[in-house]
Structures are given as C-alpha cells and as structure tokens.
C-alpha cells in the first residue's frame, strides 16, 4: 500500500507584489501555498516555532490555523521545529546556565500547541553552530544531552516526542559525536530525526545511521545534497549554509542526481517497521533561480514514481504489507 503519511516542512518562498516572500505574506498567499501542497498529496504539515505567533494572528490561534489546513485536505500539524542556531548569552544549548531559559521557551511553544489534533514531533536542533561551541568534548555533549533530556520529559507530558535534527554545521555532527550524544540521552525522552542531506554533508551515512538508531527515530527530512563537506565548511562563521566559499548551494530536492540513497533508505524504513510521517524539506530551494513550487512537485513525483516502487519492492522482498 502506498505510503500516505507524507508531510511538508514549512520552507517556501513565492513571488509577491513586494518581492519573493514566504506565503505567510498574507492569507491569500497561504491559501495558494496550502492548496498546492494538498494537490500533490501532502497530508501532514511541519512548521517552525517562530511561525506559530504569526499563524495564530492570521487564523485566530494555532488551532484555527490547523483547521485551515484541514479544510484544505491536511490531517494535522505533525511537527514543530525549534532551534537556536546561533549561541547567544541567553540561549546556548552547550551552556548549562541558559537551559532554564530554553526550557521556558519550549514551554511557551508547547502552550501554543494546545488543542491541536496531535503534534507528534517536537523537533530540535540540539546545538548551535560548531564554531561557537568548539571545542566539542564529551563534557560539552553531556551538557547538551542534559538539556534535551529535560525538554524531552516536558514535551512527552504534552504528547510530543523531542527529536533531534542534526546540522552539518552543528556541534554534534560526526558519527562519534552522535553516538556519544545518544549514549548520554534517555531513549524514552530524546529521539532521532534523520535529515538525509545534513548527515551526508557531514560525512555520515544517513541510511546506516537510521539502521543503527531506528528504534529512536521518529522522523525524517527527505532532502538531497550534491556535496560532502571536504573543506571544513562546517566551521565557517557565521553561517556555512549560505557563506561557505566552496559550495553556494548545499540542498536539493530528491531525484536531481544527489548523493543520498533514498530508495535504500526507503527499504530500511520498510524493514524497520517504522510507520510514522516522512517529511519532505526544501531548504533554500530558490538558490540559483530555483522555485519551491517546482522543487516540491519534482520531489513528490520522485515519491510517487521511485520511492513507491522501492517501498513495494522492499515489502515484497520482506513479505510484509503496510
């Protein structure tokens, strides 16, 4: 049976009378955006914590925003992404003294999600940038782990799993650092969110990583890359995603000749018995003249025409049926 739980991560830019903007430009643009995602068959919606106040204002509350999604064919808001990419004196996951503030922020985000159908993932960037955090020692990772253990316990009380989305430029990026982090975190409270491109850029095989941590995996960002970071771009201050001199665009949609083995990952997902949401993310798809709309359609084509086949083949091979 075709995988129906595909969600979309809320990155999008569209042309408006005031230049290229996110569709939160106004409700008319939101209508068009959501209808496009729905037309392709996405039924889950992941968004950022910082969009929640904006959507609440536009739709009379976050539940009102979710009803708007549901009126257009979506099941629900599936994930909320929270992050502190830049370490500040107020918030820095590797600085224990800022943890109370981060927990308070998370509490506020959870409050905004009350009365929703059922957000499943509270997705977090576990650290800030590598260059602000280094040297990354076992102790550094332990401090970070302690924070997300706290947050994980908190979000679970609200029905959401705290799940960690690692960046190639984050302080926890190598296979050894990831293993240490998972060792220091409680499997009951802290889960794994597999961003296929970020791990690949960092030189970590996302398929093997999922294979090894599938019991803790609660979600994916399906996106591709054409480059492994071979020039320590991850240390580029203040931001390697847009300022690395060697690579001007890191992320691509599936099916465009990138490095990630998506059919292989799909096979592993089927084999693991995972039955959660699979999320498509396009990050900075407009670079080089690209269009989020087309990137999304092309990615969904890949899902319908390539991944569906990989899923069916894996199910046949394993003798399982969803």
């Amino acid at each position: 049976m075709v995988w129906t739980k595909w969600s979309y991560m809320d990155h999008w830019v569209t042309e408006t009378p005031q230049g290229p903007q996110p569709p939160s430009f106004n409700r008319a643009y939101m209508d068009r955006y959501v209808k496009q995602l729905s037309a392709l068959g996405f039924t889950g919606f992941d968004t950022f914590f910082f969009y929640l106040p904006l959507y609440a204002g536009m739709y009379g509350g976050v539940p009102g925003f979710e009803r708007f999604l549901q009126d257009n064919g979506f099941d629900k808001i599936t994930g909320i992404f929270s992050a502190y990419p830049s370490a500040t004196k107020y918030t820095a996951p590797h600085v224990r003294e800022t943890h109370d503030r981060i927990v308070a922020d998370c509490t506020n985000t959870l409050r905004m999600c009350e009365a929703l159908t059922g957000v499943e993932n509270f997705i977090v960037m576990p650290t800030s940038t590598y260059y602000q955090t280094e040297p990354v020692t076992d102790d550094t990772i332990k401090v970070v782990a302690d924070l997300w253990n706290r947050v994980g316990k908190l979000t679970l009380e609200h029905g959401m799993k705290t799940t960690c989305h690692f960046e190639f430029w984050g302080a926890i990026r190598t296979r050894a650092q990831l293993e240490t982090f998972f060792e220091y975190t409680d499997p009951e409270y802290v889960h794994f969110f597999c961003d296929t491109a970020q791990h690949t850029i960092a030189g970590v095989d996302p398929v093997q990583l999922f294979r090894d941590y599938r019991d803790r995996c609660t979600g994916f960002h399906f996106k591709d890359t054409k480059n492994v970071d071979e020039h320590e771009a991850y240390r580029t201050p203040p931001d390697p995603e847009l300022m690395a001199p060697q690579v001007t665009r890191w992320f691509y949609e599936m099916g465009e000749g990138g490095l990630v083995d998506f059919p292989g990952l799909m096979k592993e997902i089927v084999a693991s018995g995972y039955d959660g949401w699979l999320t498509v993310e396009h990050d900075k798809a407009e670079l080089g003249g690209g269009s989020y709309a087309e990137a999304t359609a092309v990615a969904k084509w890949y899902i319908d025409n390539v991944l569906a086949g990989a899923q069916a083949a894996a199910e046949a091979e394993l003798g399982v049926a969803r």
Partner: protein
Amino acid sequence: MRDTLRWAYALNQWNVRLDVFVRHEDQQRALKTVSACGFDTIELASGTGRWDNISRPEVILLNHGSHAGFLDFLRRASVQGVSSMFWDPQAPAEEEEGYAFRSTANPADADAIVEWSKPFVDFVAGVGAEQLVVRPVGSAWMTPPLDGDGIKRIGDVWNRIGELTSASGVGLALHYDCLGAVHTAEELTALLDATDPASVGLALDTAEFTVGGIDPVTYYREHADRVTHIHLKDTRYADTGDEYRMPGAESTMLKGGAGRRIERWFYELGTEGGLVDVRAFVAALREHEYSGWVVVESDHGGNPAELAMLNSWYLQHELGIPKS
C-alpha cells in the same frame, strides 16, 4: 486524473521566451510537475528555431531522433503521451518559414500556409496525438474587416488542411482567441459553417471566449457537435471596450493593461473573481458526453508549477476528480 473526461495539461507557460526551457533536464522537471499534479498527457505549443526543442516538430525530432524517441523522453517523467499541438500560422516568428508574415485572410497566402502545416500534421500523427489546434486567423487589429466571403476564404484554407489531418488520422480544431479577427459569436459560427464538420472542429477556450464576450457554456451547448477540443482556464476580465482592436493588442491589451492597468488576463481555475463558470462548463461537457481532450492551461500566468498545482487542486477538490 481518474475521470470519464480525458484531462491533459498544456506546457506553454513553461516556454515563455525564446531562450528558456531548452535544457532537457528543465523540460523533465516540468513534465514531472505535470505528472505529480495528476496529468499524464500534455499539449505542445508550436515554436521556432533551435531553442524550441519541445515545440517545433523538426527540432524535436532532431533532439530525440524520432517520434518514438520523443515519447520515450516524455515517459521518463511518467507522461504517457501528447493530446494535441497548437500552431499559429500567422505567428511572424517562425524561423523555418523565413519569418514570413502570412494570414489565412489573404488568399495569396493560402498555398504557403497549407504547405507550412505539413510538419505539424505529420508530427501530431507521428506522436499519436489527436488534434492539431490552430489559430484560425490573425489579430483583428492587423486584419481588414471580414465579410461573409472573407470568412469563407479562411474556412477554405482550413478545409484544405483538414483534408491533410483527416488523411493522417488526426483532427483539426480551430482555436478562437480574444484578439482574433473572427471575434463575435456570429463570426465564429460563420467560420464553423464555412468548414467541413467531418474534418474541422472547434477548440473552445473558456477564458478566451469569456474575454472575447462569448459565454463558453452557452456557446458549447449550442455547438457541442462541433467542439472537438477544450482549453480550460479562467479570467477575471472581459474586453468591454473593443480593446482587441487596439494597435499591437498582443502587447497593449494582453500585456500593457489595455489602458485599465490589467496586469494579467488569464488565471488558474478557482481564482478569486473568476468569470468562467467552470463547474457549469464541465457539467455541460459531461451532459453532452464530450469525448475529446480537456486541456488545462495556464498561459500568460505566473510560476507554471504553482499554477499547475492550483489547477490540480481545483480539479481534485472542487470538481471531485481523484488524481489517481
């Protein structure tokens, strides 16, 4: 689209300039977009020269080796075939014809236009498409007023080309547009009357009709037996001041706002303030058991992928047609 009507999507909005939409990978992305939106058949538009390698028959064949090679190219993106191809013999930018200005309204041009049609007829037949969709006459502002004889002369040209298409097993559909010298419902009916129903049909474009002041639902109901092809799109405006007669109407009206600051005439299905009663029109097609292609089009619009997805949404959620 899983429906009793046959749905296709036109690629014209991707090919908005001479020097874009040339790389095969760009074309594959467009085809995948159309496919992901639920359409497995496309309409092609004519073009000219080496950069129109998905529009000009000779150049398509040069790029893909054969009709079968082109179909293989489409099928890589899960697009199964071609419903139709649009051709305007009046378009002055046909490099292959020496940039000659010809008009079906000019009897002296008839032989040349019939000759020009042959690559299109052959290509449409070669790829298994059903209709050659043509602009029957040039713009009104460039054409002397047409009397009954003038319309009959235009019909004669299309009857000759209709013989060619019939001999090749394909249809010929005259596509009314809002700038054409055949403008009113009476003139259009006169043109249909001047053509052979056995070989020449009408391509009814819902937005072009509406802009031109002809109600597409009414006209379809009255002439359903002649309608062999549909372009489905919406508009927010009608030509209320004979704007089609403006000199350079292609620019001054359709792009220049017609003096009313209209930035864009054609819109996706379901657009706010749309003038086309799409539901009623599609219902009329079903009532008459229309068997031709319904081509959803988004020309002169915006981002083609956005428009394709919005059109797909309308079909799925407003017309209740499952995508697959």
